[in-house]
Structure formats: structure tokens, C-alpha cells
């Protein structure tokens, strides 16, 4: 009986609509999965094409890899935390404090998403760099011999730039979530004696948790893979996984090492992406 079903099934499945899966699937396989498989394969082969698992273990235990992993995760977590805090405060102000032009500001921040990430870094150099406006101003005002502000060429500079670039990614889902919060609930809470801080904590935030998780995991994902900002800031000793992959592959031509690190980077990204999809799903996006 089950045989009959399986035999007849293909005949019924041959509807024209179903064939449309072939072109995108083929394209995806060619452009995405095939390179992915190549990278994964390359991770286990040395540069002469011979299987070399010992190298995998060596790289995963190496100082440079572990440093880069720690840098990547800590910068990414710090930048995401920064984005969440700044995004939350901005979103609360934009959504709940009525001031003229709030819509314009929201749209302006939105357009930030359209700009290339290194642009902000470049602007930062002009502002906070050793010859930037801030340092020049301070040096002139207090007649200092050396630029006093020197955070830009460190992990802090990277984090600050990433917070600036990626906060809109938190702001967007938050504003969407806040626009759905019933003003009546806020007013009811207020009449019952709740001050603004309590209302934010107990009425507004619970409604925004899916948005925070979705925005936060998107931020983690983007900052883990951030390349342009880290490269542009060029802080000494701030090497992240993408930068390490670049260095190993392009500068040292150590392809197996690059691929091993890339596989770790990809796994990290996919994990974060899963988290993002899960949260976005709960948000109904």
C-alpha cells in the first residue's frame, strides 16, 4: 500500500509550480553552499592537498587564534550591549517623549543604515583621532604638547564606532515594538501611581523583549563579522577573527589556517543567526 503511494506520488508532484525551486536552489548551491563546502574541506587539507587534522588542533589551540576569538567575542558583546543601551534610550525618547521633529530624527537615524560602515570610522578619525578636532581643540585650549585623547586606536575605538554604526539596527525593531504598546496601559500605570522609570521597566520593556532579543542578536551577528571598522581603525593588537582570516589568507597565504578560522567564524555566525531568527519569529517578523 505504501508502495503504491510512493510510486504514484512523483506523477502528482510534477506540477509546474514546484519546478521553480530549481533555479534559486542551484544558484544558492553554486554561490553559497559550494564555497562553504570548499572552505570546510580546505580546513582539513594542508597547502599540498594532503589531509592534516593535526594542523586543525594546532590552530585551535594557538595563541593568535584564541586571542582573536576573545577579541571578537568581547568587542562584539560590548558593542552590542552599547547598542542596546543607546538604542533603548533613543527609542524611548523618540517614541514616548513628544517633541517636534521626532519623526525626522528617527528617519535620519534610519538612513545611517544605508551608509558604508567605514565612513563612520573615517569621521571618527577626524573627530577623535590624534590630529582630530577634539585633540586639536584640547591641545590649543590647554596648550598641551601631546594629544590627550587616545582611545580611538584601541578596542574602545572599535566598540564606539560599532555602537554608532549598529545602534539603528536596534532602534528600528524597538520603535516598531513601542508603536504597538497601548498608550492606555501607560496611562493606567501612571494613574495607579507608577513613576516613569517603573512604567518603562514593567509596562514598556516586557512588550519590547522580543525586539531587544532580535535587534541584539542581529547586532552580535554583524559585529562578530565586522571587518571594515576594525581594519580602518587599525588599532595595534586588536585582531578579530575576520581580520585574522584576511591576514592569514591574503598576507601570509596560509590557506588552511585561514579556512580553519573561517569555519569557526561561520559556525559562530550561524549560531547567532539562529538566535536572531528565533527571536524575530517570536516578534512576528
Amino acid at each position, binding site marked *: 500500500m505504501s508502495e503504491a503511494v510512493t510510486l504514484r506520488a512523483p506523477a502528482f508532484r510534477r506540477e509546474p509550480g514546484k519546478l521553480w525551486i530549481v533555479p534559486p536552489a542551484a544558484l544558492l548551491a553554486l554561490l553559497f553552499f559550494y564555497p562553504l563546502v570548499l572552505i570546510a574541506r580546505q580546513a582539513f587539507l594542508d597547502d599540498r592537498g594532503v589531509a592534516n587534522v593535526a594542523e586543525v588542533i594546532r590552530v585551535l589551540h594557538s595563541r593568535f587564534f584564541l586571542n582573536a576569538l576573545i577579541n571578537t567575542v568581547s568587542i562584539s558583546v560590548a558593542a552590542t550591549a552599547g547598542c542596546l543601551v543607546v538604542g533603548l534610550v533613543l527609542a524611548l525618547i523618540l517614541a514616548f517623549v513628544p517633541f517636534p521633529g521626532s519623526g525626522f530624527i528617527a528617519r535620519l537615524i534610519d538612513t545611517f543604515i544605508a551608509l558604508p560602515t567605514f565612513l563612520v570610522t573615517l569621521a571618527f578619525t577626524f573627530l577623535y583621532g590624534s590630529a582630530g578636532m577634539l585633540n586639536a581643540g584640547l591641545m590649543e585650549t590647554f596648550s598641551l604638547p601631546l594629544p590627550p585623547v587616545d582611545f580611538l586606536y584601541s578596542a574602545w575605538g572599535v566598540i564606539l564606532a560599532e555602537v554608532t554604526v549598529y545602534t539603528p539596527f536596534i532602534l528600528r525593531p524597538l520603535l516598531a515594538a513601542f508603536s504597538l504598546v497601548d498608550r492606555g496601559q501607560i496611562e493606567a500605570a501612571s*494613574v495607579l501611581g*507608577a513613576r516613569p522609570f517603573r512604567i518603562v521597566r514593567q509596562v514598556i520593556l*516586557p512588550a519590547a523583549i522580543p525586539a531587544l532579543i532580535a535587534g541584539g542578536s542581529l547586532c552580535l551577528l554583524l559585529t562578530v563579522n565586522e571587518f571594515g571598522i576594525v581594519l580602518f581603525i587599525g588599532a595595534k593588537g586588536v585582531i578579530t577573527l575576520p581580520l585574522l582570516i584576511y591576514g592569514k589568507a591574503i598576507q601570509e597565504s596560509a590557506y588552511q589556517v585561514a579556512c580553519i578560522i573561517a569555519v569557526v567564524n561561520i559556525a559562530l555566525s550561524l549560531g547567532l543567526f539562529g538566535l536572531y531568527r528565533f527571536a524575530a519569529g517570536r516578534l512576528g517578523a
Partner: protein
Amino acid sequence: MSAAAFTGTSVMDIDAAKVRGAGSNVHFDKVSVAYGAHVVLHPLTLDIAPGEILAMIGPSGSGKTTALRAVAGFVRPASGRIRIGATDVTDLPPYERGLGMVVQNYALFPHMRVEDNVAFGLRAQGADKALIGERIKDALGTVGMSAYARRYPRELSGGQQQRVAIARALAVRPRVLLLDEPLSALDAQIRRNMVEEIARLHRSLPGLTILYVTHDQTEALTLADKIAIMRDGRVCSHGPTTELYRRPPNRFTAEFLGRANLLPVTVAEAVGPKGFATARHGDALLTGAGRNEKAGDKSLLCIRPQHLSLTADSDHTNRIVGTLQEVHWQGELTHLVLDVDGTPVRVSATRLPIALPEPGAKVPLFFAPADTSLLPEDAGV
């Protein structure tokens, strides 16, 4: 009927003073509100006594919600002061006013259980745990929702959600309860029950002052001690419920509060010592309750549809004749529409003669002088 129970206001006031220390009256002192150049509340002066239910009714856009939100603190008056008890609250934020508020769409906190919704205000005010537990039980008991404490709002019906909203407002023991169309989202049957429950609730909390905004005159008539009728941002009449219904001071009030037949008349004999005047409508000489009408005044004689009878008796001494135009049978009531010298007159009757006249027939109508009220024809508002 509960309105009748509440009209003994002097007794109420004493009770209220005992229970709440007379600190719960609401006083609007020339309060005006404008959005930009658009004035939506003209200087309003109004008093709600401690323990009183004041129903504010009026057409859509007449400023009822605006007045209520000014008390709550969400609308800032352009001028005037608002006092609750001895406190001038005009400059206080909502969370310092000590009020309860219930609105049409309940506005329960969706991620909190019923008990946490009810406890919200107490927690915000820093009450201790034992007191909170006690008040949750009390408040949910009062609205008959004790069995639902562990549910989430989405697991309740509309009527149940509204009960929880009322319990949440009562749990903080507010001085004044603000209700803005609290029953509008419910269907007719539940609405009737809830009106009776709110009346019962107020009997158990006699000191609670209630500002009840509605556009439903039945709710207002059932619940309110006093009614304020709003029109275009002004109070067009204000008074004890039965008084306002029986002796509407102007045409708008007569027509907004219940149905009214308004017969144009000319006063023939000024108001006498017993408060009655005689007035002429065509050939008919009618007696009606008046205020200070003088002979020759143009006036309107207000007669409620249920006070017109097809049969004469010793009380129903006034008689007019109309041409029957329509008959609408509605089960409990039958509505007749007649034409009396060009004025449409509506009769609502519970019993009718067995042989009902045909449309087109001349029908005499009888009514008692005590059931009428003379009001000035041009009483613009």
C-alpha cells in the same frame, strides 16, 4: 431605580464624609483646554461632591474625555484650576493624584496575571506584601473575579477584563474613580449587568466619588446622582438626575436625556403658587409645570412619550388630539407616532386598547400636568 436610591444626597454626603474624610470632592474651577488654537473645553466650573456619581454625557466630540483627562492629569488646562479634596492637583503629575481610572479598552497589562495587574498600583506605591495580598483578594472579590486571579488578560472575556480593570483601579483605594465609557466595548446584555454591578459596587463603597463619562443616557440615568450634559465643550445643563430628567432646563437636555415631545405653546396664565401655568396649543388649553413663565411667553411643553395615554382618567387632565401615522410594536413597548398640528408626537405604551386605531385616525391623547415641564423656546445653549 438605583438612581432613586442615590438621590437622597444629604444622607450620602454624611456617609461619604465619615468614610473618606470628605477629601474626595472634585472641583473644576474655570478649567479650559485648547489644542493649539482649537478650544475644546470652555471655562468649566463644576463640583462633584464626595461619594457622588456624576455622569458626564453628551455627543461625540463634546469634550467629555478631555474633562476627565484633565482630572487624571493627561491634559493640561490652558487656564483654571482643578482641586481634589483640599489639594490643588493642576500641577501634579498623574502618579501623584491618587486616582483610579478605567477606560473603554480595559488597558490591562497583557504580560501580567490578573492578580499582578490588580497589585500593580499597590506595588508602585510601595505597599507591603501582606496588605497587597489582602487588597487583591478584596478587589477581585468585589468584582466577582476571585477565581481568575492566576489567569492572563488574554484568557478572559471582555466583560471579565473590564471587571479586572475596575478591580485594579479599586485596589489602590482611590479618592476618585474616573470611568471613561467603561462599558462601550461590551455587548448590550453584559452592559446592562455591568451597570447594575457598578451601582452595587458604589453602594458598598459609598464614599467613592465617581466621574462617569458616557454617551449612553441609560447608563447615566441608572447610575448617576447628578448628570452634566456637555455640548461643544460647555456644560449645557447640570443637576440631580431625576430633576434633570423631569424638568430639563433647555431643549438640548430634554432631547438628549431620554426622548421628549416638545409642543410649542403660548403661556396663557403665569405660573401660580403651586408651580403650574396654563398654556395654549392651538385650541387646547393645557396645564404644565413651569418656572417663571409669564402670560404671552412662547414656550415648549415637554412631555415624555411614556407619559402620554390613549385613555383619560382623573390625573390625565390635559388633552390634545393627533393624527395617527405609524405604529411600531416592540414587544415590551408599542410606539405610536402621531401628528399634532404639525408637531410629531411619540407615544410609548405598555398597554393599548384592544382595538387599535388605524393610521390616519384622529386620536385623543391625555397626560397629567405633573408629568410635564415648560421650557423656554429659545433656550439656546
